[in-house]
């Protein structure tokens, strides 16, 4: 194990972490405020990836495609909220899980009808394709950009939630919905705004992920379940927890996949390490979740209620 590999994998872990954060932030906000489990959050991530790829192919301008992709994911999110999810806020979690599970099937199949079941090719413009030199090693510019965007969104989110009037309403809504409504705030509108906000963040994660992972139906659910792990570790409803959880999960997952096999081979025989390494690496974040839950059942940074 040398320095270059460790540095590269640290950046990879950070990149996965901020990606998970973009998804976890929206999900945890929607849960914290509407007390709603939204499995279809992953579907919005997929929609963002598809629409941006589509707009980039059509317009040829990456920036325009990003703006259009984000805007249209926002619209899809808001329409979904108005049509299906709005009636679910008062229902129990079981109904929410099932209905949003139905939405996942619907969106995945709709995407398969429009673009086919095979993965579509998603590209990045030339000016984002290079590498950045860090003395002894170099790192892809695009992945660095993802880290930058993710951290910027984290700061922006912190600012909005803790320093603006909208953020004040969001925090108030999370701690006592009835009281906020009684004070004359249009709580339904607030819900729609928060949901749209979360949808746009999911879309952003999707459009950033497109060129790195494969853009195909069902891509949202693969990452969504990791996002659940993030939220459970961080504490449901807490943005701070989502940030910490996302970085921990991103780092542990990346490091496990990169280094578990070589580490195991120092104690086990090579064949045993070959077999156990990948299996253990893929289970690592779930085991981490189990350990965290054993000692901190409400997560690392539980939301203050």
């Amino acid at each position: 194990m040398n320095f270059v590999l460790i540095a590269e994998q640290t950046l990879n872990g950070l990149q996965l972490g901020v990606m998970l954060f973009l998804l976890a932030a929206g999900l945890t906000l929607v849960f914290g405020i509407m007390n709603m489990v939204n499995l279809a959050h992953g579907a919005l991530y997929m929609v963002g990836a598809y629409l941006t790829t589509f707009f980039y192919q059509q317009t040829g301008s990456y920036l325009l495609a990003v703006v259009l992709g984000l805007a249209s994911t926002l619209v899809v999110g808001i329409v979904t909220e108005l049509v299906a999810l709005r009636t679910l806020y008062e229902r129990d979690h079981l109904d929410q899980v099932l209905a949003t599970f139905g939405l996942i099937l619907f969106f995945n199949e709709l995407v398969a009808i429009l673009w086919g079941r095979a993965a579509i090719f998603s590209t990045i413009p030339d000016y984002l394709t290079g590498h950045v030199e860090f003395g002894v090693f170099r790192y892809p510019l695009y992945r660095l950009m993802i880290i930058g965007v993710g951290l910027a969104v984290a700061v922006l989110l912190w600012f909005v939630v803790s320093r603006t009037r909208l953020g004040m309403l969001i925090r108030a809504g999370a701690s006592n919905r009835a009281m906020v409504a009684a004070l004359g705030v249009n709580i339904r509108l607030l819900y729609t705004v928060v949901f749209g906000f979360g949808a746009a963040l999911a879309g952003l994660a999707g459009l950033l992920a497109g060129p790195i992972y494969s853009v195909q139906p069902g891509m949202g659910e693969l990452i969504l379940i990791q996002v659940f792990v993030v939220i459970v570790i961080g504490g449901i409803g807490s943005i701070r927890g989502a940030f910490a959880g996302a970085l921990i999960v991103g780092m542990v997952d990346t490091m496990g996949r990169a280094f578990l096999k070589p580490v195991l081979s120092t104690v086990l025989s090579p064949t045993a390490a070959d077999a156990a390494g990948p299996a253990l690496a893929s289970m690592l974040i779930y085991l981490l979740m189990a350990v965290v839950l054993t000692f901190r059942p409400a997560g690392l940074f539980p939301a203050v209620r």
Partner: protein
Amino acid sequence: MSMTPRSWILVGLLALLAAVPPVAAYFDAPFYLDLLRRVMIFAIAASSLNLILGYGGMVSFGHAAYLGIGAYAVGVLGYYGIHNGCLQWGVAIGASALVALAIGAISVRTSGIYFIMITLAFTQMLYYLGISIEEYGGDDGMRLKLRSEFDFINLNNETAFYYLVLAILAFAILLVHRLVNSRFGRVIQAARSNEARTRAIGFSPYPYRLAAFVISGALCGLAGALLVNHTAYLTPEFMNWTRSGELMFMVILGGIATSAGPLLGAAALLLLEDVLQGWSLLPKEAVRDHWQLYLGVILVLVVLFARRGLAGLLPGKNE
């Protein structure tokens, strides 16, 4: 035990299922035997889920895990040349119970959304474990060379296998019914409706819930052992999270916390799938290839508008 109209309907349904093999043989339509055997296997799995989801209020989004463990127990033993059915199915039940104990010990302490996410995440972990073990086929899975071997029954006889599945289904429904109406079941249901009061009258819900979780896992493991014998094939897809979602949907569609619900739900969902996939009146591209689109819409509509499920249409009160 007095028989309510509902129990009679359930017995009637099981009798109808028992009449299927001769009728299918008469019309030379073995396909229906296969389809209904699949329905019954999923009805067993859904019944096991109904015990904790319906009566216990524990929304497990990871029940497919035990289908997978039961299937892998049979498949892996078969891979090493052990085809003894009693041993295979015993290991399937035992291993499922053990895994349910481990997952339950952590997840049953939590509730609400935590419980949903944790059960889902652990099942996903097992799914990835299945994918990463190359020895047992990894992603592609593996064929089950021989069906489980028993002294008293030959599973290669499709009709005999059908009746065995039917008998196990009847046993599963009765087991859940008896459990739910026992003192144990009363505590579980009390904890679902009001945990604080249950504690106040001196019951700690945790051990009761955990026991129900383990029983449910073991029963679902048995369904997994049946399923792998039915398909003669084994893949990590048995544990896919969508499978867990389908099992939940069966319970809700059929009617939550009712004896007949899981069977009705499994039948409705699998027959609906079959119809949507094979409806020759509609253009192929629009329906058959994309039946999940319609299934998704139906699911949303059922949740929004048909809360009591199919069993809600039957006479008598929901249990």
